């Protein structure tokens, strides 16, 4: 209640942000404690009929207020926010523009904020707080180097980034495009990325347990 009403929060470290007070997580911790106590003592959870009725009434009233009639909720409070809560409307700070395929697009991560391009911005900003990092990902899942190249040339010419991070090779190895073709495409990509003075980081392809043609992946990486 204090966090919600008075904006009480704690400073986060090492970044100048507020500590995110998440009431749902605290409730979860309380429930874990109660469950541990009940199971350890092997006694039934003591229930007060009055408290139980009050809680159920509160839940029902909350449901009515939040869902049945929006007019019951004052403007701005329909989606409650808490001190330090990250806002989805905060613009993503953008120095490099990683082109790539599914991994760069965030496949496997639970949200775009958890994918490596967004995390990379956070990591650099944490280490170099005086630098504004502006990162954008330009990626299409399943794309080979030939398909990425056209977009890479266009985007670099348009954005003139300081740094290009290009993860390439996984889909080329899967499609078996051939080492000579792959080498030519990557060389064109290097030329395009550096033509406007950008630095370039090339990431080789990912190896994963179910690769069937490991030798092909090895050859693509060495190319």
């Amino acid at each position, binding site marked *: 209640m204090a966090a919600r009403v008075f904006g009480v929060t704690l400073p986060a470290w090492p970044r100048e942000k507020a500590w995110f007070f998440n009431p749902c997580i605290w409730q979860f911790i309380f429930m874990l404690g109660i469950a541990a106590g009940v199971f350890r003592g092997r006694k039934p959870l003591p229930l007060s009929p009055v408290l139980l009725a009050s809680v159920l009434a509160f839940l029902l009233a909350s449901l009515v207020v939040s869902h049945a009639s929006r007019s019951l909720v004052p403007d701005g409070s329909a989606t409650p926010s808490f001190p330090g809560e990250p806002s989805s409307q905060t613009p993503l700070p953008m120095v490099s523009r990683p082109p790539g395929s599914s991994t760069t697009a965030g*496949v496997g*991560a639970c949200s775009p904020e958890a994918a490596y391009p967004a995390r990379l911005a956070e*990591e*650099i900003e944490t280490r170099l707080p005086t630098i504004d990092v502006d990162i954008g990902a330009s990626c299409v899942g399943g794309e080979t180097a030939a398909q990425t190249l056209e977009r890479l040339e266009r985007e670099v010419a348009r954005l003139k980034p*300081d740094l290009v991070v290009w993860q390439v090779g996984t889909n080329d190895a899967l499609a078996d495009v051939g080492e000579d073709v792959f080498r030519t495409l990557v060389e064109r990509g290097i030329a395009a990325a550096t033509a406007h003075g950008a630095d370039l*980081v090339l990431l080789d392809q990912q190896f994963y347990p179910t690769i069937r043609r490991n030798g092909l992946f090895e050859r693509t990486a060495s190319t």
Partner: protein
Amino acid sequence: MSDRGHACMARRLANGIIRAARRGEMEAKVPSRREAAGPVSAGL
């Protein structure tokens, strides 16, 4: 790749980029460790 994999990849990539820039291997210039740490507090 999982959230943890993405976080690990971002951390290693950031380390590599900053290290390369500080070694002068890149066009981009980044503050040294001392500059990045900011002014030293007197502790009072």
